[in-house]
């Protein structure tokens, strides 16, 4: 029995979550600006992966990043590696799954930061960058963390989009969810059960962590 697919899943989910964290917090910071033009439209575009069927997301990604697409062919020319049907494809699929969770939570957390604290920082001589790192980010950290943990769980559980844009290549793009599917369908050996148990425990841990963060956030709202 092999644990490689599970290890691959965690690796993919970890990298995808990092990407979603950096992109998501950046985008949420933009979206939290009340005067940003078209911000609800941008928000909708970023959130739509939550409600689109995975095959539809997969189709868009294949169209945008496939071998014959503009972006896909440029990438292949420059780096001489393929973007889809590889480890990178898994990461892209999982990032797309995780990003909306991070953006949503981060936007709410950033908008929840008391505006007078930002004003106070301005009167104390801080510019926008310093305010972001020293006031906004620390005070929004809990909410952002909750989104990141949920995003990690989504990335770990990603199935449909991964299948479409990364395939199901054993040893390369076969993540735990794909492996479990293959084993169960093929009535293969019992090796899927271990992964099922580990993924279940991870999911429970995620729920516990998110509830814990949200509770602490409520009680920490002091002066």
């Amino acid at each position: 029995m092999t644990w490689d697919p599970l290890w691959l899943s965690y690796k993919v989910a970890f990298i995808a979550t990092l990407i979603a964290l950096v992109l998501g917090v950046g985008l949420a910071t933009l979206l939290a600006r009340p005067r940003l033009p078209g911000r609800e439209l941008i928000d909708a575009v970023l959130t739509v992966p939550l409600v689109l069927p995975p095959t539809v997301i997969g189709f868009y990604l294949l169209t945008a990043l496939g071998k014959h697409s503009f972006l896909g062919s440029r990438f292949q020319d420059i780096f001489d590696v393929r973007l889809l049907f590889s480890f990178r494809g898994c990461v892209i699929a999982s990032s797309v799954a995780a990003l909306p969770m991070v953006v949503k939570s981060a936007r709410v957390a950033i908008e929840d930061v008391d505006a007078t604290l930002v004003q106070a920082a301005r009167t104390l001589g801080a510019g926008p960058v310093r305010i972001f790192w020293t006031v906004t980010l620390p005070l929004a950290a809990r909410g952002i963390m909750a989104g990141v943990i949920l995003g990690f769980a989504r990335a770990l559980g990603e199935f449909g989009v991964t299948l479409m844009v990364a395939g199901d290549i054993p040893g390369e793009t076969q993540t735990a969810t794909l492996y479990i599917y293959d084993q169960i369908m093929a009535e293969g050996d019992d090796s899927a059960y271990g992964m099922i148990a580990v993924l279940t425990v991870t999911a429970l841990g995620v729920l516990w962590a998110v509830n814990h963060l949200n509770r602490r956030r409520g009680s920490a709202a002091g002066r």
Partner: protein
Amino acid sequence: MPPAADGLEVQLAVSRGNGTERFSLDVSFQVPPGITILFGPSGTGKSTTLQAIAGLLRPERGRIAFGGETWFDGERGYERPTRLRGIAYLFQGLALFPHLTAIGNVCYGISRTQPRADRHARALALLDRLGVAHLARRRPRTYSGGEAQRVALARALAMEPRVLLLDEPFSALDRDLRAQLSADVRALVSERQLPTLQVTHHVGEARSMGDWVLRMSAGRIVETGTPAILDGPD
């Protein structure tokens, strides 16, 4: 009122809302060194005036200048960023950073060109001067009302401001604390010769703290003078 050679000159107009909720503010005054009280009932535009002076809100027209330096010029469309104005602003809700200790809060406004140890020493000296050195390593959640006020005041003064703005600074305090703190503020302001604009709707506070009083009503200044203008039958 004497001309403010080294003080603040303010002339601004703000209007907001529409129909029945219309709000318009149109004031012109000077703030010399010492405490000038902006007195009037709530909703008359006192806090809005402070925000405009600090650059947290952009007036429609007018001119704000400190000494020879222009902070806002409606005609030229010029606006000096808040962070460069050197304003200490004591917010009504204090706005202490909840994630920082008293030292962290006070150090926030001290120029970072100074070595860290010096900044700490100065913050600690100010906290000590205001009688709250024991809070240095504690966060705002654990402070009493008066303690929070003192830390906020220390933070405001630590940046060596050129102007001090106080928005209902003592409204949350009981009478004894209010008396103590007003004495402290008066002493700190007069030793620094700091032009100070203090908003209040409390007659006693206006009388005991003010060198000058600007009485506001419905977005206009209706009377200016010494605190004696508040004496009388009201």
